[in-house]
Protein backbone atom coordinates (compact mmCIF):
# COMPACT_ATOMS: atom_id res chain seq x y z
CA UNK A 1 0.00 0.00 0.00
CA UNK A 2 1.46 3.39 -0.94
CA UNK A 3 2.36 5.82 1.83
CA UNK A 4 -0.21 8.29 3.06
CA UNK A 5 0.03 11.71 1.42
CA UNK A 6 2.47 13.78 3.52
CA UNK A 7 0.15 16.77 3.67
CA UNK A 8 -2.70 14.61 4.95
CA UNK A 9 -0.40 13.09 7.54
CA UNK A 10 0.71 16.52 8.71
CA UNK A 11 -2.91 17.67 8.89
CA UNK A 12 -3.92 14.57 10.86
CA UNK A 13 -1.26 15.41 13.47
CA UNK A 14 -2.33 19.04 13.84
CA UNK A 15 -2.60 19.63 17.60
CA UNK A 16 -5.77 21.64 16.99
CA UNK A 17 -7.44 18.55 15.55
CA UNK A 18 -6.30 16.01 18.11
CA UNK A 19 -8.12 15.76 21.39
CA UNK A 20 -5.05 16.30 23.56
CA UNK A 21 -5.00 16.84 27.33
CA UNK A 22 -4.23 20.32 28.59
CA UNK A 23 -1.04 19.13 30.29
CA UNK A 24 1.60 18.77 29.19
CA UNK A 25 1.10 21.39 26.52
CA UNK A 26 2.05 20.12 23.06
CA UNK A 27 3.21 22.99 20.87
CA UNK A 28 3.18 20.98 17.66
CA UNK A 29 3.75 17.50 16.28
CA UNK A 30 6.39 16.96 13.62
CA UNK A 31 7.32 13.84 11.74
CA UNK A 32 9.87 12.42 9.33
CA UNK A 33 10.06 9.23 7.32
CA UNK A 34 12.59 6.81 8.74
CA UNK A 35 14.14 3.43 7.94
CA UNK A 36 14.33 1.01 10.85
CA UNK A 37 17.09 -1.41 11.71
CA UNK A 38 15.12 -4.19 10.07
CA UNK A 39 14.99 -2.10 6.89
CA UNK A 40 11.29 -1.40 7.20
CA UNK A 41 9.89 2.07 6.46
CA UNK A 42 8.66 3.83 9.58
CA UNK A 43 8.01 7.29 10.98
CA UNK A 44 9.82 9.37 13.56
CA UNK A 45 7.29 11.54 15.35
CA UNK A 46 8.07 14.26 17.85
CA UNK A 47 5.38 15.65 20.10
CA UNK A 48 7.03 18.97 20.88
CA UNK A 49 6.60 20.12 24.46
CA UNK A 50 6.79 23.64 25.73
CA UNK A 51 10.27 24.42 27.15
CA UNK A 52 8.69 25.17 30.51
CA UNK A 53 7.18 21.69 30.86
CA UNK A 54 8.03 20.42 34.35
CA UNK A 55 9.48 16.94 34.75
CA UNK A 56 6.36 15.68 36.48
CA UNK A 57 4.37 16.39 33.33
CA UNK A 58 6.71 14.16 31.34
CA UNK A 59 5.69 11.04 33.26
CA UNK A 60 4.14 8.20 31.30
CA UNK A 61 0.82 8.80 33.06
CA UNK A 62 0.71 12.25 31.44
CA UNK A 63 2.08 11.20 28.07
CA UNK A 64 -0.02 8.09 27.52
CA UNK A 65 -3.21 9.92 26.38
CA UNK A 66 -1.13 11.88 23.88
CA UNK A 67 0.44 8.73 22.51
CA UNK A 68 -2.98 7.13 22.13
CA UNK A 69 -4.30 10.15 20.28
CA UNK A 70 -1.36 10.18 17.86
CA UNK A 71 -1.56 6.45 17.17
CA UNK A 72 -5.31 6.64 16.66
CA UNK A 73 -4.98 9.55 14.24
CA UNK A 74 -2.41 7.65 12.19
CA UNK A 75 -4.44 4.45 12.30
CA UNK A 76 -7.61 6.24 11.21
CA UNK A 77 -5.68 7.76 8.31
CA UNK A 78 -4.61 4.33 7.16
CA UNK A 79 -0.94 4.97 7.83
CA UNK A 80 0.85 1.62 8.02
CA UNK A 81 4.35 2.77 8.91
CA UNK A 82 5.13 2.25 12.60
CA UNK A 83 5.39 5.58 14.44
CA UNK A 84 8.30 5.98 16.85
CA UNK A 85 7.01 8.75 19.08
CA UNK A 86 9.27 10.91 21.22
CA UNK A 87 8.42 13.75 23.60
CA UNK A 88 10.98 16.52 23.37
CA UNK A 89 10.87 20.18 24.25
CA UNK A 90 11.37 22.91 21.66
CA UNK A 91 14.99 23.33 22.77
CA UNK A 92 15.75 19.60 22.83
CA UNK A 93 14.45 19.21 19.28
CA UNK A 94 16.40 22.24 18.10
CA UNK A 95 19.61 20.83 19.59
CA UNK A 96 18.95 17.49 17.96
CA UNK A 97 18.45 19.07 14.55
CA UNK A 98 21.46 21.34 14.88
CA UNK A 99 23.63 18.35 15.74
CA UNK A 100 22.81 16.58 12.45
Amino acid sequence: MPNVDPDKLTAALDVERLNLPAKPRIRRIVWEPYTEWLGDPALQVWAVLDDKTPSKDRSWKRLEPIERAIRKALHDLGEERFPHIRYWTVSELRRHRNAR
Partner: protein
Amino acid sequence: MMARSFHVQLLDQARHLASKERGRPLQVSLRRAVSTMYYALFHFLIDEATRSFIGSRPSQARLRQLLGRAFQHGTMSQASRAFGSGSISPRVSAAMSTSVVPARLQELANAFSALQELRQRADYDRSASFTREDVLALVARTHSMVGSWSSIRDHPSAKLYLLSLLTWDRLRDK
Protein backbone atom coordinates in the same frame (compact mmCIF):
# COMPACT_ATOMS: atom_id res chain seq x y z
CA MET B 1 14.18 -12.98 50.90
CA MET B 2 13.03 -13.77 47.35
CA ALA B 3 15.30 -12.34 44.68
CA ARG B 4 13.66 -9.72 42.52
CA SER B 5 12.87 -10.80 39.01
CA PHE B 6 15.59 -10.25 36.46
CA HIS B 7 13.48 -7.79 34.49
CA VAL B 8 12.74 -5.74 37.61
CA GLN B 9 16.46 -5.54 38.35
CA LEU B 10 17.08 -4.41 34.79
CA LEU B 11 14.43 -1.68 35.04
CA ASP B 12 15.99 -0.47 38.29
CA GLN B 13 19.37 -0.47 36.60
CA ALA B 14 17.96 1.56 33.71
CA ARG B 15 16.55 4.16 36.09
CA HIS B 16 19.86 4.29 37.95
CA LEU B 17 21.83 4.82 34.74
CA ALA B 18 19.50 7.59 33.56
CA SER B 19 19.73 9.39 36.92
CA LYS B 20 23.31 8.77 38.05
CA GLU B 21 24.99 11.99 36.95
CA ARG B 22 24.33 15.24 38.74
CA GLY B 23 23.37 17.97 36.34
CA ARG B 24 23.67 17.13 32.67
CA PRO B 25 23.61 13.35 32.06
CA LEU B 26 26.20 11.65 29.91
CA GLN B 27 24.89 10.30 26.63
CA VAL B 28 26.65 7.02 27.34
CA SER B 29 24.60 6.61 30.54
CA LEU B 30 21.34 7.40 28.76
CA ARG B 31 22.20 5.04 25.92
CA ARG B 32 22.97 2.18 28.31
CA ALA B 33 19.72 2.95 30.14
CA VAL B 34 17.73 2.60 26.92
CA SER B 35 19.47 -0.63 26.05
CA THR B 36 18.93 -2.02 29.54
CA MET B 37 15.27 -1.07 29.43
CA TYR B 38 14.77 -2.92 26.19
CA TYR B 39 16.33 -6.06 27.63
CA ALA B 40 14.11 -5.74 30.71
CA LEU B 41 11.00 -5.97 28.54
CA PHE B 42 12.62 -8.57 26.27
CA HIS B 43 13.37 -10.89 29.19
CA PHE B 44 9.99 -10.22 30.81
CA LEU B 45 8.12 -11.31 27.69
CA ILE B 46 10.30 -14.38 27.20
CA ASP B 47 9.82 -15.37 30.82
CA GLU B 48 6.04 -15.02 30.52
CA ALA B 49 6.03 -16.96 27.26
CA THR B 50 8.12 -19.88 28.52
CA ARG B 51 6.07 -20.12 31.70
CA SER B 52 2.93 -20.16 29.58
CA PHE B 53 4.30 -22.96 27.37
CA ILE B 54 6.14 -25.10 29.92
CA GLY B 55 4.94 -24.17 33.38
CA SER B 56 6.32 -22.25 36.34
CA ARG B 57 7.64 -24.99 38.63
CA PRO B 58 11.23 -24.54 39.81
CA SER B 59 12.00 -27.98 38.39
CA GLN B 60 11.12 -26.62 34.95
CA ALA B 61 13.48 -23.66 35.12
CA ARG B 62 16.21 -25.17 32.97
CA LEU B 63 13.72 -26.14 30.29
CA ARG B 64 12.34 -22.57 30.30
CA GLN B 65 15.85 -21.20 29.97
CA LEU B 66 16.54 -23.53 27.05
CA LEU B 67 13.36 -22.52 25.25
CA GLY B 68 14.09 -18.87 25.99
CA ARG B 69 17.20 -19.11 23.83
CA ALA B 70 14.99 -19.85 20.80
CA PHE B 71 13.38 -16.39 20.78
CA GLN B 72 14.67 -13.97 18.17
CA HIS B 73 14.52 -10.18 18.27
CA GLY B 74 13.27 -9.87 14.70
CA THR B 75 10.40 -12.31 15.12
CA MET B 76 9.39 -10.66 18.37
CA SER B 77 9.40 -7.31 16.63
CA GLN B 78 7.20 -8.48 13.78
CA ALA B 79 4.70 -10.13 16.11
CA SER B 80 4.60 -7.01 18.26
CA ARG B 81 3.88 -4.82 15.24
CA ALA B 82 0.93 -6.99 14.28
CA PHE B 83 -0.58 -7.08 17.75
CA GLY B 84 0.20 -3.43 18.35
CA SER B 85 -1.80 -2.42 15.32
CA GLY B 86 -4.69 -4.65 16.32
CA SER B 87 -4.63 -6.13 12.80
CA ILE B 88 -4.37 -9.89 12.99
CA SER B 89 -5.19 -12.11 10.03
CA PRO B 90 -8.70 -13.62 10.21
CA ARG B 91 -7.43 -17.18 10.52
CA VAL B 92 -5.06 -16.30 13.32
CA SER B 93 -7.65 -14.24 15.16
CA ALA B 94 -10.12 -17.12 14.80
CA ALA B 95 -7.76 -19.18 16.97
CA MET B 96 -8.27 -16.63 19.73
CA SER B 97 -12.05 -17.00 19.54
CA THR B 98 -12.12 -13.22 19.43
CA SER B 99 -10.85 -10.61 17.02
CA VAL B 100 -10.32 -8.12 19.81
CA VAL B 101 -6.82 -7.29 20.95
CA PRO B 102 -7.17 -5.50 24.30
CA ALA B 103 -5.87 -1.95 24.35
CA ARG B 104 -3.38 -2.84 27.10
CA LEU B 105 -1.92 -5.60 24.98
CA GLN B 106 -1.67 -3.29 21.98
CA GLU B 107 0.15 -0.76 24.14
CA LEU B 108 2.57 -3.39 25.45
CA ALA B 109 3.27 -4.65 21.96
CA ASN B 110 3.82 -1.11 20.68
CA ALA B 111 6.07 -0.34 23.63
CA PHE B 112 8.22 -3.36 22.79
CA SER B 113 8.50 -2.33 19.13
CA ALA B 114 9.41 1.23 20.04
CA LEU B 115 11.97 0.16 22.64
CA GLN B 116 13.59 -2.25 20.24
CA GLU B 117 14.18 0.47 17.70
CA LEU B 118 15.44 2.84 20.36
CA ARG B 119 17.84 0.20 21.60
CA GLN B 120 19.26 -0.16 18.09
CA ARG B 121 19.80 3.59 17.93
CA ALA B 122 21.24 3.74 21.41
CA ASP B 123 23.73 0.97 20.72
CA TYR B 124 24.73 1.76 17.12
CA ASP B 125 23.70 5.24 15.98
CA ARG B 126 26.42 7.64 17.04
CA SER B 127 24.39 10.62 15.79
CA ALA B 128 21.40 9.87 18.05
CA SER B 129 20.90 11.91 21.20
CA PHE B 130 18.76 11.19 24.23
CA THR B 131 17.36 13.32 27.02
CA ARG B 132 17.11 12.30 30.65
CA GLU B 133 13.42 13.19 30.79
CA ASP B 134 12.70 11.12 27.73
CA VAL B 135 14.53 8.09 29.10
CA LEU B 136 12.96 8.34 32.55
CA ALA B 137 9.51 8.60 30.95
CA LEU B 138 10.34 5.46 29.00
CA VAL B 139 11.34 3.65 32.20
CA ALA B 140 8.02 4.65 33.75
CA ARG B 141 6.19 3.52 30.66
CA THR B 142 7.93 0.15 30.64
CA HIS B 143 7.12 -0.31 34.34
CA SER B 144 3.50 0.50 33.59
CA MET B 145 3.35 -1.97 30.71
CA VAL B 146 4.84 -4.76 32.80
CA GLY B 147 2.49 -3.96 35.66
CA SER B 148 -0.56 -4.08 33.41
CA TRP B 149 0.27 -7.56 32.15
CA SER B 150 -1.50 -9.31 35.02
CA SER B 151 -4.81 -7.75 33.92
CA ILE B 152 -4.55 -9.21 30.42
CA ARG B 153 -2.44 -12.34 30.96
CA ASP B 154 -5.40 -14.71 30.72
CA HIS B 155 -6.98 -13.09 27.66
CA PRO B 156 -6.84 -15.42 24.62
CA SER B 157 -5.06 -12.77 22.58
CA ALA B 158 -2.35 -12.48 25.23
CA LYS B 159 -1.60 -16.18 25.02
CA LEU B 160 -1.53 -15.97 21.27
CA TYR B 161 0.79 -12.97 21.47
CA LEU B 162 3.23 -14.94 23.61
CA LEU B 163 3.12 -17.81 21.12
CA SER B 164 3.60 -15.39 18.26
CA LEU B 165 6.74 -13.96 19.80
CA LEU B 166 8.36 -17.30 19.02
CA THR B 167 6.51 -18.40 15.91
CA TRP B 168 5.18 -15.29 14.09
CA ASP B 169 7.15 -15.88 10.91
CA ARG B 170 5.29 -19.20 10.57
CA LEU B 171 1.88 -17.98 11.74
CA ARG B 172 1.42 -14.66 10.02
CA ASP B 173 0.48 -15.89 6.59
CA LYS B 174 -1.92 -18.55 7.86
